[in-house]
């Protein structure tokens, strides 16, 4: 078993490798291998794995890439992630990718898929609509058809006919992946000092750019370390960070929240890897239906899901309660419509429920966090020192 610092460093290197080296190596190891890039937030990676492909998340350049070409495609009042994604693609970082998937999140990502088509990037570009109707016989069937389209694109490249056995095998691997990730969060809920949120982020994000088998191996080792008594507890409040994270904040921001006096006991930074709650049935003869049903019945709340019958504000409040959190930090990417449109809904509900929160905006390329740190520090102190006073709300 590798040491924890070594595993964390390995994950950090993988997570921020803008050349996607591991996927290049993986593709070069065998003839006919297919690499498929997908954008945030969620995509059922199981189907790409079953088709002999490697799904690789493209989370943009963050604060590690200077944007030159991307700015020519987007107005200044559009969020930052699409410009850094197109910049990465046009600069050849993803030349070895065979196709690109754009899960339905917002208009900006829809337009980004159009830009990839116009620039003839990859062998296929698919904008994937997710069901907004949560009846299995309507939305579920539609979703299965969308997944069939993706399998068809991959088959045109590698000729592989995907069987139920292939899909069930992949589902089982991703079930293990989800279980191990859930275990990490459960350990952190009780012992958040055993691994920082920054380290947890590296471990999760690394899993989006490497084969699931390798990630499961890393996760098993990390969990084994986390089961031991490591680290020293500090006097911090517990918070849940919610941001409908498509555009990722810089690591400095993720770190700053804990440095300012909080333990982050739940978050949606890597929402895609945690979108399905629990296992998907890995033993059915209709695995696509099982994946679709899992999305309909077992998905986490998200700004990109229309959930009028299962309001997200109550689901987030339940997470806060279950995790024993003292409050919520809302972080929205600048100009992110889904997140910013949800914000007043959450805040109105939390005012009524008496859940403490703060909110701020960020951009992936901003790495000055003093103001955010001060806001979080004041929030933490208000709970630590004045918890008996009336709930403090800083909007």
């Amino acid at each position, binding site marked *: 078993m590798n040491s924890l610092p070594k595993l964390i460093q390995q994950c950090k290197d993988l997570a921020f490798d803008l050349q996607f080296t591991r996927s290049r190596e993986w593709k070069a190891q065998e003839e006919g291998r297919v690499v498929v890039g997908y954008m945030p937030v969620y995509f059922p990676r199981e189907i790409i794995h079953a088709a002999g492909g490697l799904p690789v998340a493209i989370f943009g350049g963050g604060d590690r890439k200077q944007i030159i070409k991307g700015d020519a495609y987007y107005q200044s009042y559009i969020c930052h992630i699409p410009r850094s994604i197109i910049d990465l693609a046009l600069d050849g970082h993803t030349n070895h990718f065979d196709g690109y998937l754009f899960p339905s999140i917002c208009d900006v990502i829809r337009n980004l898929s159009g830009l990839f088509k116009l620039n003839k990037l990859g062998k296929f570009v698919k904008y994937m609509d997710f069901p907004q109707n949560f009846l299995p016989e309507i939305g579920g069937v539609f979703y299965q058809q969308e997944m069939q389209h993706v399998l068809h694109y991959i088959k045109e490249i590698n000729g592989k006919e995907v069987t139920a056995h292939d899909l069930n095998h992949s589902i089982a691997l991703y079930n293990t992946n989800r279980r191990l990730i859930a275990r990490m969060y459960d350990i952190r809920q009780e012992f958040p000092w055993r691994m920082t949120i920054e380290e947890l982020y590296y471990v999760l994000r690394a899993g989006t750019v490497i084969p699931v088998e390798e990630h499961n191996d890393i996760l098993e080792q990390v969990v084994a370390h986390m089961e031991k008594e490591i680290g020293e507890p*500090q*006097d911090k409040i517990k918070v849940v960070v919610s941001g409908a994270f498509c555009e990722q904040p810089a690591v400095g921001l993720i770190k700053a929240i804990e440095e300012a006096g909080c333990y982050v006991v739940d978050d949606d930074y890597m929402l895609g890897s945690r979108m399905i709650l629990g296992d998907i049935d890995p033993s059915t003869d209709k695995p696509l239906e099982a994946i679709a049903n899992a999305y309909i019945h077992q998905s986490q709340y998200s700004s990109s899901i229309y959930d009028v019958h299962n309001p997200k504000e109550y689901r987030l409040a339940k997470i806060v309660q279950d995790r024993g959190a003292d409050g919520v930090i809302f972080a929205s990417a600048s100009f992110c419509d889904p997140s910013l449109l949800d914000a007043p809904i959450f805040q109105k509900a939390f005012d009524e429920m008496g859940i403490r929160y703060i909110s701020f905006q960020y951009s992936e390329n901003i790495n000055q966090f003093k103001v955010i740190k001060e806001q979080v520090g004041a929030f933490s*102190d208000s709970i630590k*020192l*004045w918890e008996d006073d009336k709930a403090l709300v800083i909007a």
Partner: protein
Amino acid sequence: MENPIYTLGVDVGGSYVKVALMRYFHQSGNHELVDKQTEKIRKRNPKDVVVDAVNMVLMRNGLNQERDIAYLASTGEGEMVERKTGHFYSMTSHARGGIFFNPEAKTVVDMGGLYVRAIKVDSRGKVIDYKMTGQCASGSGQFIENISRYLGLAIEEVGPISLQADNPEVPSGICAVLAETDVINLVSKGLSTPNIVKGINLSIANRVVKLLGSLRAESPIALVGGMGMNEGMIQAIEEISAENKRNTFKFTSHPNSIYSGAIGAAIWGGYRYHKLKEKQAVLAV
């Protein structure tokens, strides 16, 4: 007789690390400053400076961190303090430090190395409202340090020399980046060193008083932070305030004002120590 607890506050600023050792009597609620230490960071690793300063205080008092310190609280750049119990935001710490120096204070002005912040507080040290200077470094302690270096003065001399001014000239604008040029201009105009320093103090004082006005601050106002020990600055603030007939504030200062953040953090540490103990006792029942 109640056994007190010892708490340590470590305030890591832009230029200095300040450490305060406090003794806290829970039943009476009394706090005593036992010892203090300031270390200039210079070009050293701030983490090493923190360790040295803490060890110095512990050694001088025959204490051991694990055995004797109930709570080690960081404030300021808290990530530089590795072996801490908890962290408090610098405004929270300075507000409490200001109340420690002057329990009657209704406003605390933290005049530190990087900015000036006016904080309205209640009698418990709870922050009610605040205003602070912007990102620009002019009007900060670091700026005064730069000026003193250009004038060939030790930082300790800046306050007393300002008191000797007889005809200060307030510069039209102060920019930390262009400070050296500003000073050369003032020297070439034939101004004496006391008049240059006083003029700069008046210029900063003007900003402080404007900040207090915009906060609708109430007196008495406790001046804390590194610049709170600079008697030239205090005099300048009082003069500017006296000129403003609508907002005449009453100020207090303290010779240990540089330790306000460290003291405030240590006091909050004592509070949290007992609060956590109470919570554990409740859980154990």
